[in-house]
């Protein structure tokens, strides 16, 4: 308990310090990288919910990210609605679409659901790419205004940084709460043993849909933030490989804890920036690195770190398990 409280304050202080320091020391370019990283983190969190917790592989997440972005773009640019309405619409709209898809697709079991999500992202991408009257087709949608509440506008990179940071913190807290709730436990029960879950009163069909919808809503808000940040969106961003990237980030960081998405996203988004001199080879190293890491640390860096920590601790304390069977 004491450890948890200390951890909480450490994280809170870290975030507060980051909120103040990062904009001061970073160039506009670096700040943009940070902003995109945070938006990506929200999408990786969505993968954490649907796959890390509920065990359902979904390649649709980048598609939902796009849905969120396009809803905001369409509402602000074509319908001239306020950014606040747009962000809410993105969250709710993406959630609604996911819920409807979930109703149909969770009738499928095991691998088949995952395969269908490949279809979903490909179809969504096809729509983004070709539905000219609504999504602008290959031209995309430009001129998306900055986010604003009333007369308060978030035009600069730093404004966006603070806006996105607030949402990141909020979404992380929501995820933390879900993880420790009965809903979160029902997700994990489905992941680890669906039959046991059902025999423990979990309506797995409905619960999977809830997980899928919640995850999609995370992508929805991430998409909206992305649209406001970059003021131009196009279909080439919201693709199957992008979804695969979220999955990889989750697995690299660790799929079983909240710290996993943080580590995974930071690693894959910021490392390329720090190793710019390896520019040409970056993707190659990334691909090979993923392959190696899966062999060496299948629980991700956090999971592997925990195991290493446990084995060091056990050796240090010579701890005996205290059960008296036999």
């Amino acid at each position, binding site marked *: 308990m004491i450890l948890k409280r200390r951890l909480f304050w450490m994280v809170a202080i870290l975030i507060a310090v980051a909120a103040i320091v990062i904009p001061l020391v970073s160039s506009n370019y670096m700040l943009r990288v940070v902003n995109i990283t945070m938006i990506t983190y929200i999408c990786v969190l969505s993968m954490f919910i649907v796959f890390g917790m509920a065990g359902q592989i979904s390649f649709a997440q980048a598609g939902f990210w796009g849905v969120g972005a396009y809803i905001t773009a369409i509402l602000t640019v074509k319908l001239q609605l306020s950014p606040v309405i747009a962000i809410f619409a993105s969250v709710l709209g993406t959630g609604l679409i996911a819920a409807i898809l979930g109703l149909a697709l969770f009738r499928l079991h095991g691998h088949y659901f995952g395969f269908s999500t490949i279809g979903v992202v490909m179809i969504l991408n096809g729509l983004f790419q070709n539905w000219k009257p609504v999504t602008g087709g290959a031209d995309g949608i430009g001129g998306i205004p900055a986010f604003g509440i009333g007369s308060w506008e978030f035009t600069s990179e730093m404004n966006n940084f603070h806006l996105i940071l607030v949402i990141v913190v909020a979404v992380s807290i929501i995820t933390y709460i879900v993880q420790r709730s009965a809903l979160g*436990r029902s997700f994990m029960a489905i*992941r*680890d*043993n669906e039959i046991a879950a*059902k025999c423990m*009163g*979990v309506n797995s069909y409905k619960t999977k849909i809830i997980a899928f919808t919640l995850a999609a809503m995370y992508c929805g808000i991430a998409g909206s933030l992305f649209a406001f940040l970059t003021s131009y969106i196009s279909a080439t961003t919201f693709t199957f490989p992008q979804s695969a990237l979220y999955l990889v980030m989750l697995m690299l960081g660790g799929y079983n804890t909240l710290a996993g998405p943080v580590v995974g996203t930071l690693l894959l988004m910021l490392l390329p920036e720090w190793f710019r001199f390896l520019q040409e080879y970056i993707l190659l190293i990334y691909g090979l690195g993923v392959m190696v890491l899966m062999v060496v640390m299948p629980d991700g860096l956090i999971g592997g770190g925990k195991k290493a920590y446990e084995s060091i601790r056990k050796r240090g304390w010579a701890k005996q398990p205290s059960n008296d*069977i*036999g």
Partner: protein
Amino acid sequence: MNLSAKEAGQSSPVMILDKLCKRFGGVVAADEISFTLASGQIHGLIGPNGSGKSTALNLISGVTDMDSGNVILDGETITKEASYMRARLGIARTFQHPRLLKRCDVRTNLFLGSDLANMKKHSSPFTLEQLMEAAGLRLDLGDSITTMSYGQQKLFEIVRALLTNPKVVLLDEPAAGLNTKEMERVEALINIAVKNNAAVLLVEHSMDLVMNLCHVITVLNFGRPIAEGIPEEILSNEAVIEAYLGRGRSA
């Protein structure tokens, strides 16, 4: 050892199984299985391997769909209900090989049980401390499940089942693979269930446990009930002896 519990326990029927039938292709797994479970009673379900005992549990808990027959719980026919619904209505079970959440910690696994209890209207007489004590498990809530031995995992699964505050507890070979001390703990847990008026359906191969604990025993062979009665009657029943063929028991 526990025949006095027969008098002590309440005896109102809580679950009625009416002619449950199930075929898998050409194999008849369940052939008009019928019996009644009463609250506070331990009902044994025995039979040679392949006689349909696990199938019966799967049909009752809703894991397998039945071809025909009815399951009635507290007067309500729940035959059409999905397994999660039956769990919410008060059926809890364990499995031959423990179905625990291997990637979650002890807390998550246990609270999954109490989450179900919280869904029910009446408060639960089962407490975590009492159950863990009876099971002999001293675990930290943050521990990983995988540190437990097989026997501990089986006991853990029974604890989880009882935490749900069930009306009916289905136990699928809880003693299989356990040593004597662990079997004693299984008995202790079953007694707690019975003391709190749950009905226990015990599928077992360990005759010691069955004869000691059960108030009533139903014997299955090839999916069909061939005998039902108190332990002494079953031991001397010719049809039963024949079904087991050569498994002589000194009574």
